[in-house]
């Protein structure tokens, strides 16, 4: 692999140390878990996203260069999956379940309330850069619907009353 993509990267003139040591260490660890670099490519995107919030063009190039994978192929993978963000997101990503059980339990109404509170619709980031609202398929807590995740945390049995308190917890300076 690698041949043509290298040239592309040469023209982007990324600093050689774009990926930080921690990221590189984590990517190298993933390498030990998979017999093929392609598999590490997707893992590396997740790692970079974990550190930087999203996968910018530069990050994509850097990962491609580091692993010797074609950029176009990596882009094809990055844009396939729901949880790789190719656009900047807020400090906290809200994954909002809008699948069937939550829908039956009124998630649309709760979502309206969230949109009102944060001033954002699906796919948008609040003005203060704190929250991005992304719809996701069923979060697997259907008996306690409606459900959402904020960052890594699951919040269940949402109703119009408990939202404010939840969001307050994630605002900067409060955690």
């Amino acid at each position, binding site marked *: 692999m*690698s*041949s*043509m*993509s290298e040239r*592309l990267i040469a023209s982007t*003139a990324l600093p050689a140390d774009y990926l930080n040591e921690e990221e590189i260490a984590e990517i190298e660890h993933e390498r030990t878990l998979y017999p093929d670099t392609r598999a590490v490519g997707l893992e590396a995107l997740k790692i970079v996203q974990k550190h930087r919030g999203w996968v910018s063009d530069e990050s994509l190039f850097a990962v491609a260069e580091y692993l010797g994978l*074609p*950029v*176009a192929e*990596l882009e094809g993978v990055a844009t396939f999956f729901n949880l790789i963000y190719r656009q900047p997101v807020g400090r906290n990503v809200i994954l909002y379940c809008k699948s069937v059980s939550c829908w039956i339990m009124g998630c649309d109404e709760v979502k309206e309330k969230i949109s009102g509170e944060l001033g954002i619709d699906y796919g948008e980031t609040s003005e203060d850069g704190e929250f991005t609202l992304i719809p996701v398929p069923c979060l697997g807590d259907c008996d306690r619907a409606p459900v959402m995740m904020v960052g890594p945390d699951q919040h269940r049995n949402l109703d119009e009353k408990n939202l404010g308190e939840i969001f307050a917890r994630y605002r900067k300076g409060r955690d």
Partner: protein
Amino acid sequence: MTEKAKVEITIDGVTYEVNAGSNLLQECLTLGMDLPYFCWHPCMGSVGACRQCAVKQYRDAEDSAGLMTMACMTPVQPGARISIEDAEAKAFRAGVIESLMISHPHDCPVCEEGGECHLQDMTLMSGHNYRRYDKKKVTHRNQYLGPFINHEMNRCITCYRCVRFYNEYAGGEDLSAQASHHFTYFGRHRDGTLESEFSGNLVEVCPTGVFTDKVFSENYTRKWDLQTAPSICTGCGVGCNITPGERYGELRRVVNRYHSELNGYFICDRGRFGTGYVNDAARLATPLDGAGNELDAEAAGRQLREIAGNAIGIGSPRAGNEANFALRKLVGEENFHAGYSDAEHACMQLAAELAGDPRFYNPSIREIEQADAVLVLGEDVTNTAPRIALALRQSVHNKALELADGANIPRWQDAAVRELAQQERSPLCIFACGATRLDDVASDRVIDTPSGLVRNAIELAGRLDASAPRTAKSHEALERVAGQLLAARRPLIVAGTSSGNIDLIKAAANIAGALQKRRAVHENHGGTAAPVDLCLLTAEVNSMGLHLHLMTRQENSLGEALRKLSSGETANVIVLENDLYRRAPHAQVDAALDAARKTAVLDLLPNRTTAKADLVLPVTAFSEQQTSYVNYEGRAQLAYQVHRNHGAACPAWQWTGDFEHFRQALLDCAGSVAAFAKLGEVLPDTSNLPSGIKVPRQSERYSGRTAMKANLNVHEPKQAQDPESALAFSMEGIPPRRDATILASSWAPQWNSNQSISKFQDEINGPLRQGHGGTLLLEKKSEGGEFKPVPANGDGGGLELLPAFQIFGSEELSSRSEAIRARMTDAYLAVSPADAERHGLQQGRGVRLSGGGIEAIALTCIRTQMSPGAAALHVGDAEIDYHGLGSQVELAPADAPEGRGLGELIVSDLVRMREER
């Protein structure tokens, strides 16, 4: 040939015999049935994505319900019962096409695919004609993909063929499927030139108008309005079959013409986009005297014959056989000289000698694809014989096919075969002075200087056969490579004449010879064994043809011709389609032409040689003439005239005045030059054409014929006559039934696209039903012995000079086409980082080369994988005296010449440009 196993299946109540091991779609198409499909491609197998080829399959005689199945994904089983006509199957296929069309822009009137669109054909065939979808369509942004290809994503039907061809088949890396569900997008990661040398095939692989020919766009014409004829690509020595199309006297485009043994369905981008020179305003249109005055044709012809009285003739590897023969006849056999460099001359002699050696076999492209271990010696195949590089890429896939056989996965199950094999490939070892564009599939690479490569090759031969000469120096990969070649079922050695390194060809012969000997011992207890594949690539479209004219006069080199002229031994010279400055040291050419009393040049574009001529005769371009060429295999093929001559240009055989008709020239050549004894066989079999009836060059729907020239004269002009071939410059006539070489274009009822070719094949991917794929001229003679290659002494202090080839820029005529020029770089010298540092060279800056008493300036191109000690010079269209520089050069920094720079260079190992540039 072994007979293929057959099985019986029943389709809509009729029983047929079909090929066992195949799939239903392929067999239905072989049987001539109209079963629609998209994602399947005859050369790329099945993936089952589009679901367009659905048929009903019944379990047994009792089963009347049946199950829907995708024909392309269903193996033929003995006794299988299927239905194409079943109402449910038809309804489903109609559903699929309706789905595919829901977001399609329905822009056929402005779409360049219109009239040869597989999607149009299939839409009709599947019975979709009314649009019910009334919701919002999905739309996409198009990308800039460079000077060759347009992108119109809204026409996409998501068949995945483009990425399957571009990435999996051709090894490209800058096109991918992106996003998902109905937003799936096919493009680059961002705007930019598509890097693959085979990108043009996307135009034909895409079943609709997503990827179209940008060069053609500039002067677009519908397929049915193009005048077409079967032709041969003149881009390199492979001789791919093409169909050029003309309108209003201009060559508009080139598409692939199927040949089962050679190019199959694909050609390279030089071949497709490199013919713009034919329409160049600078084309020579009238005979000129030395002062640039126009002459009338008769006077010019007379002058030529006068000059011929005491002349040397210099032939041309880019001119056809009849032109070379006419010149040879005009000046006499003893005065006819080679038109390529002396180094190439020697290589050609050796190549032809090896072609006559029964121990070796020069394989066709189809056969190259079957190799299961390959050794490439010093030839940058992607840049010198691109279509063969594509074939070598397929050869490494044989390992996957072998694994698939073992796992009972049918070979046509393309995705499954690739998933099973992952990175496992048949071995491909490349001996080169630096990185090549096949490295990504190479199992081993030996990187060294030209002389170092020879030493390694000698060593490898020694490892195969103890009696072959060997040296001490060796490379760790050699042991492995020797083992792989010995273990292979069908090993292949590839070398060529391009770099003029005859010792490498000798070493290649020794390697192949040793292999053959070992195989003979092994297979046959010392008896004879099958010959070993030794593919020797020739540089130009008719290098081999020119050689055959020189067979009996091997001493008639170009150097000898120049010497005879400089010394006054011969007074005049007639140069056929050749810029001598590309072939020999400039000082020698100057001396010869200055000494010559009269210089006559026949060519189609002005160049440094025509500038020195006392008589210039314009000749026809490849698409304006009928002629035969001989490719690297020794295969003679006939190319037909597609359109009228440019101005007063005519084929060289007409200028010499010895022949009235093309046929005469060809048959006289066949009759008087022993090597061409079988040339007459290239003439088509027209026995089924009633007398006077010809094959039309224009389609039945050719429009505007009477109005085309109405701005000049309202009277309809008389159609041009073609007394020279079986083809007519008109719509009248009938398509050929006996001989596929006169198939002017591929079309069948309901099949307007190039996929109609299946209607002409005896089976999918098989020879064309009408037969005739050219004539192999070279005969086997006697076995030769071992050679004694002598590696050049590389220790002269300087760097060993070798030529660097580029698909876009190295071939003389194509590099005068606008589209190709957009992809060309300046002349450059590729060196290793160490040598660059030693000589104070910087990436992209200038370098002064000195050697052989002359100097030249080029751009520095530092490549991490170049062998230290080697310097590869790409001349391109710069007036660099390559042959004058000699075999060793000294380097020094210099100012960079203003020009195109290195921007368009696509190599894997370019050292990063310095930030300030």
